């Protein structure tokens, strides 16, 4: 029997008896197939799906996947001071977390010291305040930097924070080539979604590629960028747009590095990616598979990469913060479990699980522990990690993988026509697409076409939530004292000299700034001082607002 025959007979009869509940649409705006059959899968197994660890990597980047090594359980954490966050990291490591992920406060992310007036009210609020190498030493006190892998969510001033990290490791006796981890260093999504930009695109891209070149020679185990769709998805885009905008940004970085004279196979293997995982489990699994296959194709066909490693899309996943509800927060544990399952079935290399209280505050020790346990239950009890890419061959998942890839490729072609991702951002195209999707989603929530359990349906009387994390009001004053002491106790003549050298090099186009920033870091120049030199030379980015 063909699908058409079934549709005309058995299905037609059933639909006569009763209509379906509603029309079914994926979050990426295409109708969800009622039933997928072999007729819906047009891909050739060998060329389009293939084997894990081999081009086009649809089934995963390693031949053994989680049978060899589980994904890295990496909770994004940081608040208040380096002292407080160091205690949280040690707690997480004791609880079985396998990698660290540093959240910085907003002044640090935007290149201001804690005593800058702009920092008022923001110190230590959304992450840890790091003003100089001194804070980085405290943050990793008692944590062996040659053993732990660290991810740092820092973008506009990525080179500076990486310099603090390298310099602090040197003080622990750990040379740069032993360091393992990732620096986000993805400025493009800051312009299109996340908002912590400092400099205009051209000098920002220079800092990105300077870091690529430095790390390629000095820190071979370090991922030099985490090309992020997460924040664009959080800002409201769909799954298909998330693939498209992320890979379009990826293309822009590869082009910038090639233009700076690097060989594709010298840096592409250290590019990492970062995605969100949402509630629509099958669409998310298909998204990860489609993105992996598409990136491999781009690297092979567009950029003529030769090494297989250059074609692998290795990625971190975070469960979707924007799906968490402030109402009935316990329900968020279930959302996080579904989203984590999607990430694991999609073959993620590392995972952050959100805590149930994150629509209300930064997570407490208790809630972050539940989030970590969620990963551990999936890893050790669910059995989904025992076999590789188990949803492959599902008629629905394979057809959805194809459709998501097609939709993403169509977007990338449009962005190419505009002149690439940087141009598309300057034109406001990506921002407009994201804002439009966010508004459409909100309207669907308003009409309850999109149900959010506990928020627009199955509503209960509000119960006060206890045990939320609060930031000690003394944090700001403590941090200001610390940075003042750092400036007092260092060799200020040397600091002035190294900052002047950096400024002069920034004025030229061809000097790699990374070693000069490292010189400044080692003698306790502060983040704000280093950034101010660069601001003076590069200027600051002014966004054109898109509504």
């Amino acid at each position, binding site marked *: 029997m063909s699908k058409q025959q079934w549709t005309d007979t058995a299905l037609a009869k059933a639909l006569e008896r009763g209509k379906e509940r509603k029309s079914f649409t994926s979050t990426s705006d295409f109708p969800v197939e009622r039933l997928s059959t072999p007729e819906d899968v047009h891909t050739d197994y060998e060329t389009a799906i293939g084997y894990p660890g081999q081009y086009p990597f649809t089934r995963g980047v390693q031949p053994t996947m989680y049978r060899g090594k589980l994904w890295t359980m990496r909770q994004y954490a940081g608040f208040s001071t380096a002292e407080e966050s160091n205690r949280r990291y040690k707690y997480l490591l004791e609880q079985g977390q396998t990698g660290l992920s540093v959240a910085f406060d*907003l*002044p640090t*992310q*935007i290149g*201001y010291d804690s005593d800058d007036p*702009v*920092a*008022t*009210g*923001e110190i230590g*609020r*959304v992450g840890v305040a790091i003003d100089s190498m001194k804070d980085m030493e405290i943050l990793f006190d008692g944590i062996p930097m040659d053993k732990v892998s660290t991810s740092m969510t820092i973008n506009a001033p990525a080179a500076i924070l990486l310099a603090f990290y390298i310099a602090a490791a040197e003080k622990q006796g750990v040379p740069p080539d032993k360091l393992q981890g990732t620096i986000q260093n993805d400025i493009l999504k*800051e312009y299109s979604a*996340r*908002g*912590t930009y400092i400099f205009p695109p051209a000098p920002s891209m220079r800092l990105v590629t300077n870091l690529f070149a430095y790390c390629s020679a000095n820190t071979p185990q370090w991922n030099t960028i985490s090309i992020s769709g997460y924040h664009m998805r*959080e*800002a*409201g885009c769909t799954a298909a747009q998330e693939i498209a905008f992320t890979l379009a940004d990826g293309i822009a970085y590869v082009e910038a590095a090639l233009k700076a004279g690097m060989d594709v196979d010298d840096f592409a293997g250290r590019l990492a990616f970062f995605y969100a995982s949402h509630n629509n489990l099958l669409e998310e699994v298909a998204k990860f598979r489609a993105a992996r296959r598409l990136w491999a194709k781009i690297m092979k066909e567009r950029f003529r990469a030769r090494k297989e490693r250059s074609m692998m899309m290795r990625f971190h996943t975070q469960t979707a913060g*924007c799906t968490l*509800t*402030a*109402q009935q927060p316990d329900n968020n544990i279930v959302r996080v479990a579904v989203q984590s399952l999607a990430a694991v079935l999609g073959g993620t290399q590392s995972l952050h699980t959100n805590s149930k209280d994150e*629509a*209300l*505050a*930064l997570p407490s020790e208790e809630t972050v522990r539940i989030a970590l346990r969620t990963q551990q239950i999936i890893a050790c009890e669910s059995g989904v990690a025992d076999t590789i890419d188990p949803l492959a061959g599902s008629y629905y998942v394979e057809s959805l993988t194809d459709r998501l890839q097609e939709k993403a490729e169509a977007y990338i072609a449009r962005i190419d026509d505009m002149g690439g991702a940087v141009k598309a951002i300057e034109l406001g195209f990506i921002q407009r697409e994201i*804002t439009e999707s*966010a*508004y459409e989603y*909100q309207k669907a*929530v*308003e009409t309850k076409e999109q149900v*959010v359990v506990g*928020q*627009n349906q199955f509503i209960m009387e509000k119960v*006060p*939530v206890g045990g*939320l994390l*609060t*930031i000690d009001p003394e944090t700001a004053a403590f941090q200001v004292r610390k940075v003042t002491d750092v400036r007092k106790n260092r060799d200020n003549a040397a600091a002035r000299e190294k900052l002047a050298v950096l400024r002069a090099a920034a004025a030229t186009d061809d000097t790699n700034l990374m070693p000069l920033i490292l010189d400044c870091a080692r003698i306790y120049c502060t983040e704000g001082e280093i950034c101010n030199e660069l601001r003076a030379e590069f200027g600051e980015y002014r*966004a054109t*607002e898109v*509504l």
Partner: protein
Amino acid sequence: MAERKIRILIAKPGLDGHDRGAKVIARALRDAGYEVIYTGLRQSPEQIAAAAVSEDVDAVGISVLSGAHGYLFPRIIELLREQGADDILVFGGGIIPDADIPVLKAAGVAELFTPGTPLADIINFLRERYPE
């Protein structure tokens, strides 16, 4: 003469980059018939108060998700008062813990809308303040 539309400034103070909520609300208020001006990111309290006065707005809606609300809201209200613009209604939203809400209201914030609030509630709040 056409009746003057109610003008609302949607503002993102401080260093917070989370503007999904601010933009969605700006769009919704515009669709509801208000004249909406959006400041964009990273505006200082001084810039926001100055914009509110020079744009002659009736209300300012402030969005803060970074935890800096305890400083930013009262500071903007203080600056509006200093400029004799305390007739401008100040409301807002974001990740604002319940415990902080009475403190901000005492400082002069008319209403706070926390995550999950239907857009209709915000529009109703403004309709009550500014009946047609």
